[in-house]
Structures are given as C-alpha cells and as structure tokens.
C-alpha cells in the first residue's frame, strides 16, 4: 500500500480561536486548538486520529474540510490546494462547494446532524441533486439503493429522523455522505453515541463501503481499541500537536511516547483475571490557551526531565514509519 499516491496533504495547519478580550487588557489571547500539524494521507488508507477530548482532533478534521477558517498552513487535496495561508492562496468558495462532493463528513451526533424537517429521502437527495451525481430521473432509485446498502429499507424513505433509533440515524448520516461517491470521508467519532452491538454493525458497514467505493477515511475517535482494529495508521494528538504516528498495530503494541503508553494503559482490561500496568498520568489536559513550555506533555509526564520543560522535542523516526516526538527516545 506504500506506493499509493497521496490523496490529502496537510502541512503546518494551525487553527487558533480568539478568546474574549478582558476589558483592560490589550493583548489578544488565543486558544491554540490545532498548532502546526502536518500529515499525509495516502489514497485508500484509513488514518485514525486519537487523543483525549480537547486535544484538537475534531477541529483538525473540520479545518481540513474548511468548515473552520484556518489560521495557517496548507491543505492540498489531489494536487489542488484548498488553502495555503502562507502563499495567500484560497480556493474560491464556489469551487470548494463543488469539491465537497469528494470530501464528506460523518458527524458524531446523529441526533444533531439531521434536519428534523427533512425526510430521509430528502436529506439524501439534497446533495445528490446539488452535485448532479445521477440524472434527475434516476435520483430516487439511486438514493433508495444507497440507503439499502446502508441497511435501511425502502419503506423508510419518507420517514422523518425522529422515527429512528440512534443506530439507524447514523446509517442515514453515512448514506447521506456516501451518496455523493466521495473520495475522502472524515468520520468524527461515528460510533461514540451508539451501543456496542450497533457499533460493530456500523463499523462493518463502513469497512464494506470502503472496499466498494475505494474510500479514504480520516477516523477520529477516542476509542483506541476500535481505532486499532479499523485503521491502517494511527495518529496520536495531544494539545493540538501530533506526538506519535505509525502503523496501527505497531503504535498499539509498542507505543513509545509516554502519553500513548498512558492512553493504552488506561483502557480497561478485557477479562477480570488480566492485570495491566497502572496508568501513570495524572490530572487532565491543560487549557489550550496556556500551553506548557517545551514538551507540551511534561506537566503530566511521569518521566519528565528538566530538558522537557525547555526544549520542544523534535520529530523522530523509529523505523517502519513509526515516528514520535519525545526527548527520551
């Protein structure tokens, strides 16, 4: 798979949110949700993005699709720059809108991402009509087929979202995204709101559709076990930066960054007779307004040295495509 060409190239992407200015203070404070992230996503790959809530993983997903206005950096999709803040390039909104056919998003909360006033059919047809995926005469049949592929029978075509359970709604959201035959899909915690049995159904569906439609996924999740199984590659984010990256199996079996190790040790055991090392990180993720100096993880890191407080660790390759940013490697 290594020879697959690049589908999406993200370089030095930044997204800062301005904070409300206190009355008598002059300087503007920024919440650095995504701070200089570079990532290359090859075609037909599933890349998993993991981290605690507040680490900027959702913001990154949205910034790539230009659902947030970026603060800096460059994103190139199939050789076409979506934005390049340094080169002051900006794909015009109309062109971007056409390009959205190829870049879709599956949102976390299936209760919030469907318009309650549109029937399932209308919700799916809307995008298909906008992007002329099929001739108008075939539209209905096409949408029914997509819904059926996603496990929703024809009789639900005229039903409204409130008539469905969480799992079914998530299927509608997936069908709506995939009806446009996209090339790249950002999935923002697609199963977080669902039960375990339904979670497996949805993940299998997403895997089947990936084969069928040759999709590339950016899979955002805080569930490491699911990500490990679903993705080819795992990217771990902490406070707006990527701290470890590599093939999924490799990162999960031999994590090198203390944060990744802690994330894996925090997972509950699979069976009561198993034991695991105690998770060693304390406290919670600091605010992205006041980012710690040096290595961002040092205040919570059990192995922190004085050097970690001063120098920002460089990105190191450990071989086999496994990289991490830590002084201790």
């Amino acid at each position, binding site marked *: 798979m290594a020879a697959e060409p690049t589908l999406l190239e993200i370089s030095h992407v930044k997204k800062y949110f301005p904070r409300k200015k206190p009355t008598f203070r002059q300087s503007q404070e920024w919440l650095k949700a995504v701070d200089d992230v570079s990532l290359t996503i090859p075609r037909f790959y599933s890349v998993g993005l993991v981290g605690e809530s507040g680490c900027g993983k959702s913001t990154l997903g949205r910034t790539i699709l230009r659902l947030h206005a970026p603060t800096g950096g460059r994103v190139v999709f199939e050789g076409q720059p979506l934005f390049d803040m340094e080169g002051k390039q900006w794909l015009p909104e109309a062109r971007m809108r056409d390009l959205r056919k190829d870049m879709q998003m599956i949102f976390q909360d299936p209760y919030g991402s469907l318009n309650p006033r549109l029937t399932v059919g209308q919700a799916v047809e809307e995008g298909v009509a906008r992007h002329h995926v099929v001739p108008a005469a075939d539209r209905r049949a096409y949408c029914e087929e997509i819904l059926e592929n996603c496990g929703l029978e024809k009789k639900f075509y005229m039903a409204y979202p409130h008539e469905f359970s969480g799992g079914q709604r998530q299927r509608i959201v997936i069908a709506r995204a995939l009806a446009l035959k996209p090339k790249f899909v950002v999935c923002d915690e697609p199963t977080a709101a669902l039960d375990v049995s339904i979670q*497996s159904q949805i993940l299998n569906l997403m895997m089947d559709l990936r084969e069928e439609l040759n999709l590339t996924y950016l899979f955002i999740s805080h569930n490491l076990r699911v990500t490990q199984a679903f993705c080819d590659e795992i990217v771990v984010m902490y406070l707006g930066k990527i701290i470890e990256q590599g093939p999924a199996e490799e990162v999960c079996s031999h994590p090198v960054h203390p944060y990744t190790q802690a994330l894996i040790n925090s997972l509950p055991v699979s069976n*009561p007779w198993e034991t695991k090392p105690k998770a060693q990180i304390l406290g919670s993720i600091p605010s992205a307004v006041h980012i710690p100096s040096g290595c961002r993880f040092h205040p919570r890191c059990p192995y922190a040295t004085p050097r970690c407080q001063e120098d920002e660790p460089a990105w190191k390759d450990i071989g086999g495509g496994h990289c991490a940013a830590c002084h201790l490697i």
Partner: protein
Amino acid sequence: MKLLEVKDLNVVFHTILGEAEAVRGISFSVDRGEVLGIVGESGSGKSVTSLAIMGLLQRKKADIRHGTILFDGQDLLSMPEKQLCQLRGSRMAMVFQEPASALNPVIKIEKQLSEVYKLHEPARAKTCHSELVALLKRLNIPDAEDVLKKYPFELSGGMKQRVMIAMAVLCRPDLLIADEPTTALDVTTQAEILELLRLVQQETNCAIILITHDLGVIAEMAQRVIVMYRGKILEECEAESFFRSARHPYSQDLLNTRPEYFSGRFTSIEGSIPSAYEKLTGCAYYGRCRQAEPRCAVRTPEQIQCGDGCVCCLKYETGEGCTHGG
C-alpha cells in the same frame, strides 16, 4: 439478610403511545460490600431498575405493577416518601451518568455538598468545611479549597464526576448505585474514576451497583454480573465465569462484539433491541439470536438455576450445559 433484595419487579410506563413495559419481572439481590455489574444495551431497563430502587420514578407516569424492593429488610415501595428521603443520600446514594446535568448549575459546589449534611446530619452542616476539603482531597481533587468555591460549569467533566461521587459518599452509604459513571468521559479519566470507586468501596465497604454497557468496566470492577435485555435478566453469574464461559447466547454475542476480538471484521449482533411498546411472545432475544430454535418464538423461557448463577434460555432447560467448562 441481604442488603438489597429485588423480587419480581415490574415497571410499566403509561404514555400517549400506549403502555411501555420497561422492566418485566426481575429478581436479584446485593450483598454488603459487593460490586454488582449490570450490563445491557440502551433500552434494556437497567436505568429504570436503578431509579425504581432509589424511588426516583415519577409516580404519576411509572406504574410499579408488582414486586418488592427490600433494603436491609425494609420494603422501599410501601415506604412513605418522608422516610424514603431519609434513606436516600444517607444510606443509599446514586452517581448519575451526566454529572453536568445532575449538579445544580447555579449553586456553588460547597453549598451543594453541604446540603447532604443539612438533610441528614444537620448538626454537622455548619462546620463541615474542613471535612469537605479532606474528602475532596481524598478523591484526588488537587485544589479542593478552590473547587468548593466554584460553580459546576467551571469544572471539567471528570472533576464534576468526582464531585458527584463525593456527594454520594458523604454519609458513607451502604449502597451506591453508579449509572454509567464513566460513559461521558475520556479513557484516562475513566481509569481514574474507576480507581476512585474502588477506593471508596474499600474504605467504606459499601455495596456498589455498577450499571454500564462497557464490558471493560465490568471486567475491571464487578464481582458478579447481571445481563439485562428488554426488561428481563437473561443471565446472572460470577464475573469471572461470565467472561470465561457465559451461557446465554446474548451474553456470548455481547462478549464477542468487543473490538479487541477483531479479526478482519467486527462481530456484530444484527437487528436491534425490540421496543418497549411491543408485546412479546417467547424469548425477547429471539430474532437476533443465532442459536434460536423454532420453540424460542412461542415459549417464554424461565429462569433456571445454573452453576453459580442463573440463566434464562430454553437451551438450558434440561439442565444440560450448566456446569462450567472453565
């Protein structure tokens, strides 16, 4: 005498859509100092059971058709509200799933915590500040003094859940019900909260009913497991034998859906849980069960004593397969 005994509990909700039978005749008991895990998908009736035990179901809407709930020998269902209020918060307490909506947003943490004392030990309410600080410190809240002066919205999710646990254990209850205490939290915070519940359990020797749909949480915490499905208990056994050799097909399927058993495909349970409005004949799991036989559609299985627990499946009717293979 067991600490809590639930016998043949049946809860029906009257709604405009008709009657919804949320809990359909369940019986179980909890010993002192025991951690009992209840698992099941959403809609299986686990939360309704816990609300019924706490007496928090709205009496207008929820109809407890029959059944008894004995807490330390006293019948909770026939108890007057006033007496129940004295038990709640002091001898039995609850930790809710959403700490953000369970805490009052306009009252500072200190006042919310001291309210527990005000109700149950008025003499201590005025002088409890140092006790509260000590308790919060015990629960790994670093700047306890500051936290007490804050409003809930100023705290993170994990911190709020810690405050909820503090509130629940203030009067050292005998029974603590934790309804999905870590579902809304990150894995790192989840590990800390579970550690905290373990600490509380060891120090106060209270019984914990842990309701969750995450089998990992059960594996970490529980000694005994109850599997609920559509208002019924399908299986009850020791945690270890549950994970080694669960008997009910639903338990087996649940165990197989865990993502760590991924091999090219995620194992899933097709279909979804039947709605509470449907009148059921036969086994509730019929239709999704891969081991179903024609008789499962018509005959309702009874609970059968089986090894160290019980199971509710026609497969074990003859008593066969009831010994654990280990």
